[in-house]
């Protein structure tokens, strides 16, 4: 895949911007807070239909403006550059009648001339893999980082997953409301027959969709595990076996503490990767049953893929708790390169790689590894943001294109 051109209008701190990208390495230089990340955010938004850092999409529109747009042109095939693809998104806010402070956001998505009012058709068009400093949370942060990561990855390579996980999310919202209704009517001893039957129906549906989502995650992790292991050996020079543990939820958002990780009964066993969909479904049904009182008290569904966690272990010890800073960085880096491989397999050629100021987070050894992996993928276009060019070794810069960002303006630099 090859990004040719990006046009921004009133997007974040960009007023009017038009950038031509080149094949290979595109290096974007600039001080902090000049708009480097905003640029990558725009590209990623076209790819995923959402922003990883805006809590609400209205934040994407420049201050005091009521509309913005992102437009890209790209080629699907690196080799065959005849078929130019066009995607654009227009954002427009209008005041809500009667409410002075609320704004209604309308989006108009155009994919090669076809217009949509939601971003759900975007996924699967422009394919990117991005690596930014926030990704270090994959090893050290809370479960939500890992769930979002695996959900985004699966959604970009599997159309069915996207649909199933959306349905699952809706189903959980409905089930939560039902739990709330039941709790407010007096709890489990006041259940009418139709409440009982309704609870059965929503639980069955949640369990069936939840099992599908979980099974797809397990398949992906199983496929990724050896890749992660080999990259991690390449970086560290040490052959440390990587194991994956999959937790089917706990009470707390952040379940595993070093003391009790082995005692948790909601962990899938050592053959987690072979757990069948129907087995996952019945596990979920029994979790609903055993935790029903707690679910009623908290008025929410406490088990299922929306609460699950993935724990990566080095030598059987959770990297999160036991790994050194170096080890966790190696793990995340290996994970990201493995992700790049999977998406490339799916596309039959590399996606666009976005590296947002990530070299600053890595030591020289890991920087070298990453840039070597980038260089090895001859057909891959990469966009890198950085504050300092001297972080780059000379041999990486061969054939690279340079851009400079300052105060929401970007221009190509002819020489460096």
């Amino acid at each position, binding site marked *: 895949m090859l990004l040719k051109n990006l046009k921004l209008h009133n997007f974040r701190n960009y007023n009017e911007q038009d950038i031509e990208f080149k094949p290979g390495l595109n290096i974007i230089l600039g001080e902090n807070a000049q708009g480097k990340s905003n640029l990558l955010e725009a590209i990623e938004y076209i790819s995923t239909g959402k922003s990883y850092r805006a809590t609400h999409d209205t934040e994407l529109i420049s201050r005091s403006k009521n509309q913005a747009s992102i437009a890209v042109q790209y080629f699907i095939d690196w080799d065959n550059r005849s078929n130019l693809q066009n995607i654009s998104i227009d954002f427009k806010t209008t005041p809500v009648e009667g409410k002075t402070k609320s704004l209604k956001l309308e989006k108009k998505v155009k994919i090669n001339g076809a217009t949509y009012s939601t971003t*759900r058709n975007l996924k*699967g068009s422009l394919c990117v893999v991005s690596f930014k400093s926030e990704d270090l949370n994959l090893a050290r942060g809370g479960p939500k980082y890992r769930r979002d990561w695996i959900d985004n990855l699966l959604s970009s390579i599997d159309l*069915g997953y996207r649909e199933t996980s959306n349905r699952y999310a809706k189903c959980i919202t409905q089930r939560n409301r039902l739990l709330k*209704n039941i709790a407010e009517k007096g709890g489990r001893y006041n259940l009418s027959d*139709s409440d009982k039957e*309704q609870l059965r*129906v929503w639980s069955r549906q949640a369990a069936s969709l939840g099992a599908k989502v979980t099974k797809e995650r397990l398949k992906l992790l199983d496929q990724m595990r050896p890749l992660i292991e080999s990259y991690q050996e390449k970086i560290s020079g040490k052959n440390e076996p990587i194991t994956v543990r999959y937790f089917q939820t706990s009470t707390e958002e952040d379940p595993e503490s070093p003391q009790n990780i082995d005692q948790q009964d909601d962990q899938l066993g050592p053959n987690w990767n072979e757990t069948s969909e129907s087995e996952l479904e019945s596990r979920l049904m029994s979790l609903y049953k055993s935790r029903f009182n707690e679910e009623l008290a908290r008025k929410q569904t406490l088990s299922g893929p929306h609460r699950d966690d993935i724990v990566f272990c080095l030598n059987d010890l959770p990297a999160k708790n036991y790994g050194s800073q170096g080890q966790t960085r190696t793990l995340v880096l290996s994970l990201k390169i493995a992700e790049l491989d999977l998406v490339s397999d799916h596309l039959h050629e590399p996606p666009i790689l976005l590296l947002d100021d990530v070299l600053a987070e890595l030591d020289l050894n890991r920087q070298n590894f990453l840039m070597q992996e980038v260089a090895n993928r001859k057909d891959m276009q990469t966009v890198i943001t950085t504050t300092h060019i001297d972080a780059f070794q000379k041999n990486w810069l061969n054939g690279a294109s340079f851009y400079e960002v300052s105060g929401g303006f970007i221009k190509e630099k002819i020489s460096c």
Partner: protein
Amino acid sequence: MQFTPPLARLIEHFQKLPGIGPKSAQRMAFHVLKMSTQDVGEFAFALVDCKEKVRNCSQCYHLSASDPCEICTNDRRDRSTICVVADAKDVIALERTREYRGLYHVLTGLISPLEGKGPDDLTIRDLLLRVQKLGVKEVILAINPTIEGDATVLYVQGILKSLPVSITRIAFGLPVGADLEYADDITLSRSLAGRREV
């Protein structure tokens, strides 16, 4: 500037209609002023007449001015088959096909805790009684494959499972004449999931 009270009242009423904003409501009200007194009278009468006469059929809950409705009283319709739909609009849509000759049952909605709709707010009990009373042999569920539709289907299945009746659900897929290339991804993946042998 303020509208004179009768005009303001009319605008206000139009604005309560679904999908009508203040601008359209104003336009509609001004249009009413331009209509002949006779047309306006007929319009007002139609509103009241419709509200007074149209009821849910006491058997199938379809909307009708007669009770039981025209479909329930039609002797030529097959009483051993009931097609279950969420809304009266779905009956109209299915009737347009002229394919189906059985009876209907309108649930008057779908199960949705978020919208405060439980099974007891729908006509599921009446469906059970009708199936028993009429000795229905087949129940066809013509219900959209949304998450609420699926939950309602599961619920209805559970309620009817002790009866000797076959339960089927209509298939969803690509519209006839649709070009595969332009079908939206979700529809396409659903059609694939619901494929049948040919």
